[in-house]
């Protein structure tokens, strides 16, 4: 652990911000927040460890479980909440909701309701960086289930062939919706598939934010320097069901409890920094307070915001054409 104090506080802030955001979504779900929502609780170290290495201009593509990536990339909490509330002030003006959350102002190119839908988009975004001689890197978050889509193969092959600046980050949480990865995936480590494309593949403990951070740093730096794509696999666990309201008949409560008690990424992080004493208790408390204030403000903003006007429903079907 060689991170300075500011970085450590930043990492804690980002992980806890995601956790508290998701807990608030859970609390409001079925009331102010409706529709499918897939929570990121338990996986915060992955988005945080990776995005802490990215610049604002760098780009990410996300999944149906996209709140964590959006926030880790630096999205505005007010606009994120307002979107989940279906309000005009939301990131997508209430057109997207949880599954299609996007924050282009911070380089988050969109959650995706189609599993495996982000591979090609990320690859193409990286192609534009290469063609326009930009130095930005693209990160494609995906799940273990998505790695069985054909889009994975086509996109990674193309990125390897053209040496594109894109890192594919697999959040291997062991469950493809409600099917165990043992019953759906022919390999144990998704990163092993990297060999088939002649690129680097690394597997790390996804609930150890330092492990994720360090591995991501290396790969992102290499991609930025023109060394091409890689696959980073983070082994993690989804504490909540596949979606809010999932009866979770496919797994035991004790399995979930075991991860909650002994492998919570935020608790593990706190334990590690407390052991070294680099960040003081008041500083930790300060982060918590900041987040609670930010959350309260964002929720109020979402609740106060106006709903979209029905007459405007067809707006944005097409982008405005510039004068020729």
């Amino acid at each position, binding site marked *: 652990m060689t991170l300075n104090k500011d970085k450590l506080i930043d990492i804690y802030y980002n992980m806890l911000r995601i956790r508290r955001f998701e807990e608030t979504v859970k609390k409001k779900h079925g009331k102010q927040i409706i529709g499918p929502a897939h929570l990121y609780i338990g996986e915060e170290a992955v988005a945080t460890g990776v995005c802490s290495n990215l610049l604002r201009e760098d780009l990410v593509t996300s999944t149906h479980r996209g709140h964590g990536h959006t926030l880790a990339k630096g999205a505005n909490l007010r606009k994120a909440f307002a979107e989940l509330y279906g309000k005009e002030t939301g990131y997508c003006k209430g057109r997207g909701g949880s599954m299609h959350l996007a924050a282009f102002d911070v380089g988050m190119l969109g959650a995706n309701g189609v599993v495996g839908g982000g591979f*090609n988009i990320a690859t193409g975004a990286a192609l534009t960086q290469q063609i326009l001689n930009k130095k930005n890197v693209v990160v494609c978050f995906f799940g273990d289930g998505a790695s069985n889509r054909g889009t994975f193969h086509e996109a990674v092959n193309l990125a390897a062939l053209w040496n594109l600046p894109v890192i594919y980050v697999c959040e291997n949480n062991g469950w493809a919706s409600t099917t165990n990865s043992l019953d759906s995936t022919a390999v144990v480590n998704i990163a092993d598939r990297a060999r088939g494309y002649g690129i680097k593949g690394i597997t790390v403990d996804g609930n150890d934010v330092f492990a994720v951070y360090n591995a991501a740093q290396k790969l992102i730096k290499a991609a930025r320097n023109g060394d091409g794509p890689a696959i980073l696999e983070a082994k993690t666990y989804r504490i909540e069901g596949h979606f809010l309201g999932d009866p979770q008949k496919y797994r035991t409560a004790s399995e979930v409890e075991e991860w909650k008690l002994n492998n919570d990424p935020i608790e593990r992080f706190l334990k590690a920094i407390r052991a070294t004493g680099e960040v003081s208790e008041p500083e930790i408390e300060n982060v918590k307070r900041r987040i609670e204030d930010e959350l309260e403000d964002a929720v109020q903003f979402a609740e106060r915001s106006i709903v979209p006007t029905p007459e405007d429903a067809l707006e944005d079907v097409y982008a405005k054409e510039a004068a020729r």
Partner: protein
Amino acid sequence: MTKVLKIFSDATLEAMEEEMQRDPSVFVYGEDIIKQGGIWGQFKGLHNKFGDRVRDTPISETALVGAGVGAALAGGRPVVDLHYADFIGITMDEILNQMAKAHYMFGGQGKVPLVLRAPDGVFPHAAAQHSQSLETWFVSIPGIKVVIPSTPENGKGLLKAAIRSNNPVIFFENKKLFSVKGLVRDSEVITPLDKAEIVHKGEALTIVSYGYFLGEVLKAVEIAEKKHSSRIEVIDLRSINPIDEETIIKSVKKTGKLIIAHEAIKIGGVGSEVAAIVAEKAFDYIKKPIIRVGAKFSPLPFSPQLEESVTTSSKDVLAAIEKLLV
């Protein structure tokens, strides 16, 4: 205004060159376009002029379209060649759920200036999997534009307009059209993406068509006009998403009779939508039943005798005209 005789393939190559020269964010990729220059030579020499902005790709249609979406969202203006439009099914999720939706579902945060070049239509004797006209699938997908050129000139003009558009455009170009010659303006050609063109004025009857098949329609019209000494109005749709309703309705109100003719299968074709529009908006003006001309409801067979029996041609258009002009 000078006009020069060109084949369709060369006219679209000019469009590519001019737009790539004009805007450095325009690039093109697809299968077999560097050395082969595209199946019909529509990309020949482009790589020599623009280097890395012209790329050969793996046979990965899904990635080509999906990467086009990402490239466009990130600020590029990609043109993707699909080789044959018959393979568009492979890419459907990228078109339907990504390309068409990204602008809307993200509340207008990003735009998708992406052009898909999709050579479609009957490729003689290539049989079922290389001879389809699937444009009707894309009529009811909001968020995309779909254009179908009928001449070298509007091929060039529509392609240039498509590349400059801030929206995803599917450019269906008939395989038989690439070698067709036509006069092309020497000056800048930009054809609007949402306007039909009246290519032949008349009062007795309206025929709506588009693409390569427009040539078959005009053949039939020439014969019929001589025989009946009446004038037939022919509308080239040029765009099927959106459909220029105004031009069609205005013409039908004048003539009271309508034929819609296309190479694609008649059932569920663009003709069905046009007929419905007219039934809804000009019902009181229609004097005779609307006739749709299109291919039979069958995959395209290989044997030339069978092929001819399934496809449609100027003969069918002429027969339809005869029914309405008696």
